[in-house]
């Protein structure tokens, strides 16, 4: 338990992103973005389409090389590390476009992350430091995030599951690694109102378990209920940061989303 959590000293941010820039060909996707995330935060990253949110996630988690800038996690410089090494340290992410094994039962989709070194070290989400049978651990994880064991939902073929469950499956993939940070890339998108209603408490539960969350989102109302800090990107630049109210009061933010100043307040 001890060393995998909270290696950072108090006061030192868990994740620090400094001056990150990235262009693709002629397009400047990220421009000198700074971000600090402390342990226990839920940080929201918002911005219109194309503002660079997913690119930022890719940059932090090693899926793209940075042109400039630095990313540090738990005090170590992880800039340009490979994605699996970053995940191995406890910094995980979900994918907006999920591609589970559709023809396999839901819990089989967790076998791959449970195969990783980190999972074997930590025993997966609830393991006490040792990995039991992978199948059992997988089903346990799914049950915890809301796959009802009585209805055999974890055993259902992934292609038969609705979006809400698939989103949770994606989160479970991260949980299997016993993460310290989970970057959620639009986990709320595509959910119905009832699915949303059960997803929000799940996020809160993860926070209570000690996971730090960074949530890239479009659905602002629910995000604002959860996040204690919000960062706004537009055209690759950070244009605002603060609490939800502070951020939505910015003229630039309103213009970014709606194109003009006359706009309804959101919060």
């Amino acid at each position: 338990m001890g060393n995998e959590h909270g290696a950072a000293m108090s006061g030192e941010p868990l994740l620090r992103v400094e001056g990150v820039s990235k262009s693709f060909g002629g397009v400047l996707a990220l421009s000198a973005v700074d971000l600090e995330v402390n342990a226990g935060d839920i940080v929201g990253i918002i911005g219109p389409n194309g503002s660079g949110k997913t690119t930022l996630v890719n940059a932090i988690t090693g899926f793209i090389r940075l042109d400039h800038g630095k990313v540090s996690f738990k005090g170590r410089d992880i800039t340009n590390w490979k994605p699996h090494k970053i995940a191995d340290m406890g910094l995980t992410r979900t994918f907006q476009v999920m591609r589970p094994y559709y023809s396999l039962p839901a819990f089989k989709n967790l076998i791959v992350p449970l195969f990783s070194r980190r999972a074997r070290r930590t025993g997966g989400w609830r393991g006490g430091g040792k990995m039991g049978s992978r199948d059992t651990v997988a089903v346990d994880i799914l049950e915890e995030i809301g796959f009802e064991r009585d209805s055999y939902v974890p055993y259902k073929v992934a292609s038969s599951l609705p979006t809400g469950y698939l989103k949770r499956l994606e989160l479970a993939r991260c949980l299997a690694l016993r993460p310290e940070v989970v970057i959620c890339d639009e986990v709320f998108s595509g959910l119905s109102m009832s699915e949303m209603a059960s997803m929000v408490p799940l996020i809160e539960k993860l926070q209570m378990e000690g996971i730090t969350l960074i949530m890239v989102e479009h659905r602002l109302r629910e995000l604002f209920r959860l996040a204690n800090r919000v960062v706004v990107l537009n055209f690759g630049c950070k244009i605002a940061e603060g609490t939800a109210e502070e951020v939505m009061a910015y003229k630039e933010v309103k213009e970014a989303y709606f194109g003009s100043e006359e706009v309804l307040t959101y919060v």
Partner: protein
Amino acid sequence: MDIIIYGIINSVQLVLMALGFTLVYGVSRLPNFAHGALYVLAGYMTWLLVNRVGLNYPLSMVVSLVLTGLIGAAMYHFVLVRVRGMAISEIIASYAIGLAIIEGLRWGGLKGGTFTLPSFVEGSVSLFGVSVDYQRIIVVVAGLVLVALLWLFVAGTKLGLALKGMAQDEQAAMTLGIDSDRMAVVSMAIGSVLAGVAALVLLPLGSIVVEAGYRVLIMAVAVCVVGGLGSWNGAILAAFIIGFAQILTERYLGAHYQVVVALLAIIGTLIMRPSGLFGRQKELEERV
């Protein structure tokens, strides 16, 4: 001094061999493993036309170039287009076709006896104290002219610009109304013709041997990998690097090591700088 001259000649030879391959890959992301086959095929067709059909040499060359281009286009249109996008199948299919052509030629044509194409101009001249065949000079000139023509074509004509657009960003080009399949056919045709030109210019230096098909493929791939798959400038620069490296090893270590140079070049590039010198797809692991 002769190192420089032979180095230049060798490098231009490599440029000629690689141009077709890099064009096709650059435009349609298709590694054309039949490149070497088209090379040998062009040479053989010319020989057939001259020696069996009795056409005169220049006419045979033109006809076989046209035929080669058509064969390349047909190859794409009938076979490769059906496997577009499935990288594994693309590779297997173009490799299989190339193999079929080369081995078919080995069985059905190029066996027993020597097949040669005459040099364009016989004789040699002395350059800076080094004796150089006219044919080799023609090779260099042809290479330079070809590169210049291609550059003009791409920069100046509508078709060329369309190809360049496809090379840069296929989807953006499609939104501009450029038909990606048609462009791919065109690029295959041009790439095949380039292979044919290389053959016609280079084969007079030796004889037409089926093995050349594989050798040309190896060299073309080596040049393109070192230069960066899809980059012309890279290919040219890489051709000169490898070309001179080969001449130097030939001078100081022995003629046989040329192939080793190619191998080391490929491996070295993949280890140290996988995207090659000017690799367009610099971030090889980048896929979002």
